[in-house]
């Protein structure tokens, strides 16, 4: 402890070793305790009602949670989510690169794509792809304005599943492009300049220098996006793709146990989104390298620190 007098000299022995300085104690926070008590009572009341209301049909939920039909639907939901995310972002990175290019044709086309696919509901787009046969009865592979190498009926090529995938990917790409573009714009232009000055080509600058740093802002937005996509795939049930929602609908159309079976889908969605959130945390931590002086702790490290701190 030190204190200064006006002349800049230390104060004369203000602290007598015999009488220690007064210790500080925190405020009592009465309001905080009252608010917490009220909220705890409300939550307990809600939980009790959910647990004891027989209409929720928890035994039925448990009975169907692991059945083959539900798990097969879940597999469809999962691969649709994965494929949509991977393909959507691949296309989105391309669109973002086009949008940021100096070529006015490329950047306008990219802009128009994003504008169009963000301006229409996903459901409408899916219905379009589902009915592609009415629009283009035959699809052919060939050179634009040139010869064709072969053709087939659209309905053979684009069944409900492919229609769903197409719709989801093209829609996802528009949003992914904006996420990636935002991330790239967030990186100091001087970084690209420094890399250019070292003799790197534009593609290399993007891949090695700009994108890895853009990931800091791309990852959280992508995490949101993947979780949104996982839940968004439930929309494919309207075009008869057997995802987890369509699977439980098929069952409750037979058994009329609507609420319990919707809960089956709900439980799976909650489990999957929770896993994704945990994954997102670790991916974010990975891309925080160099951006913070030390890496943020993992939840386990934080828990351990708290327990240790509480014990001390």
């Amino acid at each position: 402890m030190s204190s200064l007098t006006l002349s800049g000299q230390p104060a004369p022995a203000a602290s007598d070793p015999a009488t220690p300085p007064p210790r500080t104690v925190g405020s009592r926070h009465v309001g905080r305790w009252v608010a917490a008590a009220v909220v705890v009572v409300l939550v307990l009341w809600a939980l009790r009602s959910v647990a004891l209301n027989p209409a929720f049909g928890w035994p039925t939920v448990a009975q169907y949670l692991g059945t083959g039909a539900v798990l097969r639907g879940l597999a469809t939901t999962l691969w649709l989510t994965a494929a949509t995310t991977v393909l959507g972002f691949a296309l989105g990175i391309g669109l973002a690169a086009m949008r940021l290019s100096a070529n006015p044709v490329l950047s306008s086309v990219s802009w128009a794509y994003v504008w169009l696919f963000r301006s229409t509901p996903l459901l409408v787009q899916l219905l379009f792809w589902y009915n592609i046969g009415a629009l283009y009865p035959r699809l052919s592979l060939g050179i634009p304005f040139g010869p064709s190498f072969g053709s087939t009926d659209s309905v053979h090529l684009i069944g409900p599943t492919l229609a769903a995938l197409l719709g989801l990917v093209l829609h996802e790409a528009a949003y992914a492009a904006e996420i990636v573009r935002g991330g790239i714009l967030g990186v100091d232009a001087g970084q690209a300049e420094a890399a250019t000055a070292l003799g790197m080509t534009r593609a290399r600058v993007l891949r090695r220098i700009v994108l890895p740093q853009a990931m800091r802002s791309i990852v959280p937005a992508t995490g949101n996006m993947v979780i949104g996509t996982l839940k968004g795939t439930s929309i494919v049930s309207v075009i008869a793709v057997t995802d987890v929602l369509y699977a439980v609908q098929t069952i409750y159309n037979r058994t009329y146990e609507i609420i319990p079976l919707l809960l089956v889908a709900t439980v799976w969605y909650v489990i999957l989104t929770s896993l994704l959130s945990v994954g997102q945390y670790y991916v974010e931590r990975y891309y925080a390298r160099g951006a913070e002086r030390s890496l943020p702790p993992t939840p386990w490290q934080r828990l351990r620190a708290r327990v240790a701190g509480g014990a001390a």
Partner: protein
Amino acid sequence: MSDALLQVRGLTKAFAGTTVLDGVDLDVEAGSVTVLVGPSGSGKSTLLRCLNHLETPDAGTITVDGELIGYRRDGERLRELAQRRIAAQRRAIGMVFQQFQLFGHMTALANVVEAPVGVLGVARSEAESRGRALLARVGLAGREDAYPRQLSGGQQQRVAIARALAMDPQLMLFDEPTSALDPALVGEVLEVLRDLARGGTTMVVVTHERAFAREVADTVVVLEHGRIARSGPPSEVLDQLSERRAPSLD
């Protein structure tokens, strides 16, 4: 025609109608140190950035070791080279920026090794041992695994110098390398520049550090309104400057 390593002839550049460089001629001999001074807005940085084609000039030529930078002759005109060719030319020209611009997601050593491995195709182990030696040369032995954010400004700038040196450039460009530093950290960066000058590195330095220019420069070039107002040995040029209008320099 002289046999200077860097030759600039009639370099002209305008931004949105404002002339920034107006017919600049400049020769830099191999192994010499040229310091560019002049009031802000006089075109020093633009001149420097034209030298490795970060800015595209409107007219004029730049040659390094006899090779035309950024262009090929096409009759009366200069036609810009393909991006890949320009990238290859930049490998021989190192640049150090005012704001350091270390790659934030890479350690100091990874910053130094990135271009030799990725651009020149040097084996990683070889590039790393060279990178360690370069970091040691700029006084950063032991900080190889630090990320830029964990380093002081002066340390970051020294890593940036090592990163540029790792490409074995024929010519080093410094764009106000100490302007973004705390006064206390300027000295350690200038010490590295002095060391490079003694070692015979060809350097073009934009700086406001008058004492450094006096001590290290072989030639001081004064730019005013996009033209070379004076150039010569520091003793002549800087003394003249201080008599005439020293305050406008900084």
